[in-house]
């Protein structure tokens, strides 16, 4: 080692002497006896021990030879040797790995003195003993005579032990609240503590699953916090091999792993740039979260809180709204299945939502006659309108108490959040706009405008309404009144409405266009022509395709099915086909240009 390196080591030692002494003492104490308390102490120190072993490994690797290492850390061999015979340490995957790496680090490829030769011999002996040593001579003789390979034998014993413990903890008592009653539920705590090193082991997974799913009917039957923390960190590094139901129970017990799961879902949705509604639906279902939410109200409340804060930060991001809609839809289906068994009031799941709106919005369109849709939507629209007006009045006149204003604000947000979750009614409103006459569109347009622009900053909603009404007039006269050939200037003005410079709510208008193309009585050829020209002219092919497939998914889901489902389905397919052709044509046209630029 050069002078420079030595200096560096002297200035900033990789290992702190006190720390080393602490762990030496710990290892010695743990090795003294096989008592439950010492075992518990080891389990509780595991995560810190892992960090220390990692430091130790870095230190060993930075040394030039084993002789040098032994000079610096004369007790190292003794320390590692003790850990090798501590079942808590060797049962834990990460500690075992680091421990073995430290031992290899001390093995010299070309030993150049007696110390290194001796160290090599010792390391080999340790590895050999770890595998071959049996505690009991009778066991050794017996498995040899019975003709069972030791590896299979040990695996079988482990499985049997796991099964026995599962049975054991299953016999928990039912003395909730009665502290004086004697019971043996303390063993649940002890078992969960012993499982800390085993959280990633597939063989222990059934026991861990049983522990997590125990009905907590006794005050003494608590799970160790260290056990839950270990599970949580293994969960976030995706090293767990638990069954679905056990994972749900883990979320129930451990908030951070639940948050982790929601974040993972959001990341996977937001990072997937080519996300289709079908893919989104799949991701949501695979996340297992809707099912977990339907089983445990508390999980739903947490997930909803995360969604709520996400929406507050990014109200305009369509993908997030889609995620929340898809999620809620899936959740409601799971809940309907669960509710067959136990009926819990909806109020418990949506405590913050305006209660008057709760049932009307959560009701699926398919659950009421089609003739009632319009009246229902008109009612929803006017209720929401009243809510926003109340808030604005409070804001203007009630300035003396800002808490009232905040409260009103909160109410409007919660109403909008619920509308986002129950966007099936938003779809029905868009659908009905197509077949409405000018005299009927007011409430529907207001509802949709509120959905797209919940905050009325600078009293913009009035202006938005005027613009959307103008767009609706254009679409209505094109799709409903005209017949081919369509006047060019009419199509041009539609394209202009959708252009990014137009100051118009383009995504809203585009969704109106899609609904007109699908639901109007205009013959398919005419509809396709308008749709193709406008989408092509405005350059919104991808956006239109996404809206179409999302519409298809909603209709397939059955939540807002219209009477002539078959016709609608065929029209969607035809429009999708048109878009695909446009896409291909566009990429063909682009490709030569690409070759030039490259």
């Amino acid at each position, binding site marked *: 080692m050069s002078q420079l390196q030595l200096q560096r080591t002297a200035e900033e030692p990789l290992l702190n002497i006190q720390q080393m002494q602490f762990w030496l003492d710990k290892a010695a104490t743990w090795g003294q006896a096989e008592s439950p308390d010492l075992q518990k102490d080891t389990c509780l120190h595991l995560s810190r021990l892992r960090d220390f072993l990692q430091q130790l490994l870095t230190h060993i690797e930075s040394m030039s030879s084993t002789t040098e290492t032994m000079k610096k850390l004369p007790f190292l061999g003794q320390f590692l040797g003790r850990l090798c015979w501590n079942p808590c340490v060797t049962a834990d995957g990460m500690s075992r790995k680091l421990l073995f790496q430290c031992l290899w680090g001390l093995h010299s490829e070309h030993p150049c003195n007696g110390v290194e030769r001796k160290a090599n011999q010792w390391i080999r002996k340790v*590895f050999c003993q770890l595998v071959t040593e049996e505690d009991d001579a009778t066991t050794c003789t017996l498995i040899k005579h019975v003709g*069972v390979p030791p*590896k299979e034998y040990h695996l079988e014993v482990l499985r049997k032990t796991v099964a026995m413990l599962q049975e054991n903890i299953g016999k928990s008592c039912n003395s909730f609240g009665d502290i004086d009653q004697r019971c043996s539920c303390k063993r649940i705590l002890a078992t969960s503590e012993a499982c800390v090193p085993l959280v990633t082991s597939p063989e222990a997974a059934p026991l861990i699953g049983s522990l997590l799913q125990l009905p907590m009917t006794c005050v003494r039957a608590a799970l160790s916090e260290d056990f839950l923390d270990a599970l949580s960190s293994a969960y976030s590094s995706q090293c767990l091999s638990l069954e679905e139901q056990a994972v749900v129970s883990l979320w129930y017990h451990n908030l951070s792993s639940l948050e982790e799961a929601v974040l993972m879902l959001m990341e996977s949705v937001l990072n997937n740039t080519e996300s289709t509604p079908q893919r989104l639906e799949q991701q949501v279902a695979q996340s297992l979260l809707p099912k977990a939410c339907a089983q445990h109200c508390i999980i739903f409340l947490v997930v909803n809180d995360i969604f709520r804060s996400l929406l507050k930060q990014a109200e305009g991001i369509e993908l997030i709204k889609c995620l929340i809609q898809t999620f809620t839809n899936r959740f409601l289906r799971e809940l309907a299945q669960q509710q067959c068994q136990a009926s819990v009031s909806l109020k418990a799941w949506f405590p913050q939502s305006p209660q008057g709106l709760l049932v009307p919005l959560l009701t699926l369109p398919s659950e009421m006659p089609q003739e009632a849709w319009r009246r229902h939507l008109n009612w929803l629209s006017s209720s929401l309108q009243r809510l926003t007006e109340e808030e604005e009045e409070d804001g203007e006149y009630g300035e003396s108490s800002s808490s009232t204003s905040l409260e009103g604000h909160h109410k409007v947000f919660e109403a909008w959040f619920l509308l986002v979750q129950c966007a099936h009614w938003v779809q029905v409103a868009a659908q009905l706009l197509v077949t409405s006459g000018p005299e009927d569109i007011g409430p529907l347009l207001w509802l949709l405008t509120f959905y797209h622009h919940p905050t009325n900053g600078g009293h913009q909603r009035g202006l938005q309404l005027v613009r959307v009404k103008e767009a609706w007039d254009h679409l209505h006269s094109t799709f409903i009144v005209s017949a081919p050939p369509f006047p060019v200037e009419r199509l041009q003005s539609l394209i202009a409405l959708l252009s990014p410079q137009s100051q118009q709510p383009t995504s809203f208008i585009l969704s109106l266009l899609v609904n007109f193309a699908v639901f109007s009585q205009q013959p398919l050829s005419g509809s396709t022509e308008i749709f193709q020209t406008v989408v092509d002219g405005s350059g919104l092919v991808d956006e239109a395709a996404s809206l179409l497939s999302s519409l298809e998914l909603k209709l397939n889901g059955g939540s807002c099915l219209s009477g002539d489902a078959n016709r609608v389905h065929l029209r969607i397919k035809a429009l999708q086909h048109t878009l695909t052709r446009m896409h291909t044509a566009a990429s063909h046209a682009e490709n030569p240009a690409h070759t030039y630029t490259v």
Partner: protein
Amino acid sequence: MRCVGSGIHKLLDSGNGNDRTRRERHMEAVLKNLGSSVELLAVAAHSCVVEQWDKQTLTRAFHWAHYCENLFSRFHKNAAIRRIMEKQLQLTNQTLGATFPAYSEISFSDLSQCQHLLLVGLLNNPDLPVSIIKILFDSEKTAHAKEREYQDVTGLCSRIVLCKSACKLLSPLTDLSAVGAADAEVQGAMLMERLGALLSQGSEACEPELFLDSILQGREGEAEHFCLVIAAALLTTKNSDAETAAQDFLLDWLRKKHKLLQHMCSSLPPKLLTKLAKEQQTFRNSYCEVLKKWASDMEYSVTEGEWVQTGTNQTVSFQKLTEHFLALFSTCPSQRKDVEKELKALKLYDGYFDVRGLSVWGDLLSALNS
């Protein structure tokens, strides 16, 4: 090799000519593979050639060891083929013994643990490169653990260490008094299975007995763990005639091993003993005999004012003896009448005095009824 060939002739006489040659050739190939695999084991344990081994060599070696394990499980019930293979092993052992001074012979039953023997041999070989140790002790991949079709040697030892450590960690938590230890249960079930196989294959009558004797091997006095194994074996649920036969055989064998039986009665947890007595009539009778034997070995100590054991086995006090009887009666009430009748007869033989310290039977009777 010639004598082996003639053995196959006899074995396969029933087949037609063509079939016979085909099978003969197959058997010759099998024997050749067996010989080479055993040679491989010897090389792994004793030769410096392992220095050149890499992951591929290692995987292949384990593949062949696995092959031998398969040979064992396929043919251990077939006495004829087994004899032929034993002959082959004998030949190979002779050659290898001459080559490697430290060589220890491989028997037919060793084949069942071939991979383990290979592993032990390798780990004890000072020339084994550390790179191979690293492969064996590497951290195993937990994902897709179930899908692993052909076994990967990577992490083989790490998995064994995990299993052993996990057992050590969890076993203190199992409730010993109620169900017994997991290892004893697994061993008991394995013991039953092997015994059942030995009995059903119609081998020589002495073989099952030799099998049990070889496990006991002079540990009769201190076989604490073996007692638990036997108890677990006798308590395994009987699903077939073969299993019933195996348990009956074990009970019969146990009846003849007085020392072991006494040890069982004094060392097993009382709950386990009464469970056994309830399930197995033969054991109940033997248990009663042991208890009576303990009583008959007692003498009244005037200084202590109590009955004490006179023999070398002084572990059981009069109080303990009474508890044994009472526990037995509470699980098998029918036993009470018979035992009391017997004790009365013995008391009568002693003179039927109702004075404490004159007859152990009389005092036992009054202790049981107080």
